[in-house]
């Protein structure tokens, strides 16, 4: 096994997660934080870890309906994340706009701007549903790497 392959097998065991709040009401963010901070859900069992810098991330969770004001910032942060990455839309806001749908102030659905791979509907989705979504994202990420 070459060094590169061995590194790849090692890397697929522990994807790092980065969160982007694109104008979320904070409901989804709280649930995402809950997944990692509360021992009851503990997403780190899947080998995942939240990281503070987009440059270290493998999986990106986006919440919120993408308000006009955050579009530029969000795109810039998203581009900082190295490829290959997997994008998960958390909550109905990024998927369709949810309760903010058809508002003049939001640009949802975000798949007009970001290549979304997994959707986790809910308002907010319960932590277990987010973990389910992350598990799907890890699968996709293994295929991509």
């Amino acid at each position: 096994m070459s060094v590169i392959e061995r590194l790849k097998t090692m890397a697929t065991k522990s994807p790092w997660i980065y969160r982007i709040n694109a104008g979320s009401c904070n409901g989804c963010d709280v649930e995402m934080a809950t997944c990692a901070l509360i021992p009851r859900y503990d997403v780190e069992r899947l080998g995942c870890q939240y990281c503070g810098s987009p440059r270290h991330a493998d999986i990106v969770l986006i919440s919120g309906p993408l308000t006009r004001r955050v579009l530029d910032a969000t795109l810039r942060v998203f581009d900082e994340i190295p490829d290959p990455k997997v994008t998960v839309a958390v909550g109905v806001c990024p998927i369709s706009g949810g309760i903010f749908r058809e508002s003049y102030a939001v640009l949802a659905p975000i798949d007009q701007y970001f290549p979304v791979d997994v959707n986790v509907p809910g308002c907010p989705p319960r932590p277990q549903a987010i973990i389910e979504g992350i598990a799907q994202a890890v699968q996709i990420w293994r295929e991509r790497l």
Partner: protein
Amino acid sequence: MNFLRLFARNLREGPYTEAFPFAPAPTAKRFRGKIEFDAETCEGCRLCERVCPAGAIKMERTAEGMTFDCWHDTCVFCGNCEFHCPTKSIHQTADWHLAHRQEDKYRMVEHGLIPFQVCTECGSKGLATAPAAGSANPPLTAEEFQHVKSLCPKCRGKFMRARKTKAKA
């Protein structure tokens, strides 16, 4: 009081981790999850469509009848539709397994159809909705219900009026 019990248990046993996703996660019986629709008992009043704050429900008249569609990807699980539905034909299940890949985004729909039928009395075409019989006094029996269901709106009105006069006499 439930939280006091939880609190006492956490004090005794300490925090714990759920086995999910390797085992089923505990879900409350009253958990407000995915919408389910039953075309058999629906009155076709379209209240659910009106009260839905997220615009997740769409009912439409087509050549086959009245279609019902609820898109889970924009439903905010508020329960407004179930609360206002006179027959509880629409209700929230405890199912929350909704995470899906992007290619399935527009397949996350609960679909139902209330078909057209031919009235057994006058032979004209009408929707096979359940009769709006909430205020009928005395309440409709099962046979009466089935009979009214097979009628068109005009004949339903006639039947109900005749029944009312009979009940008064």
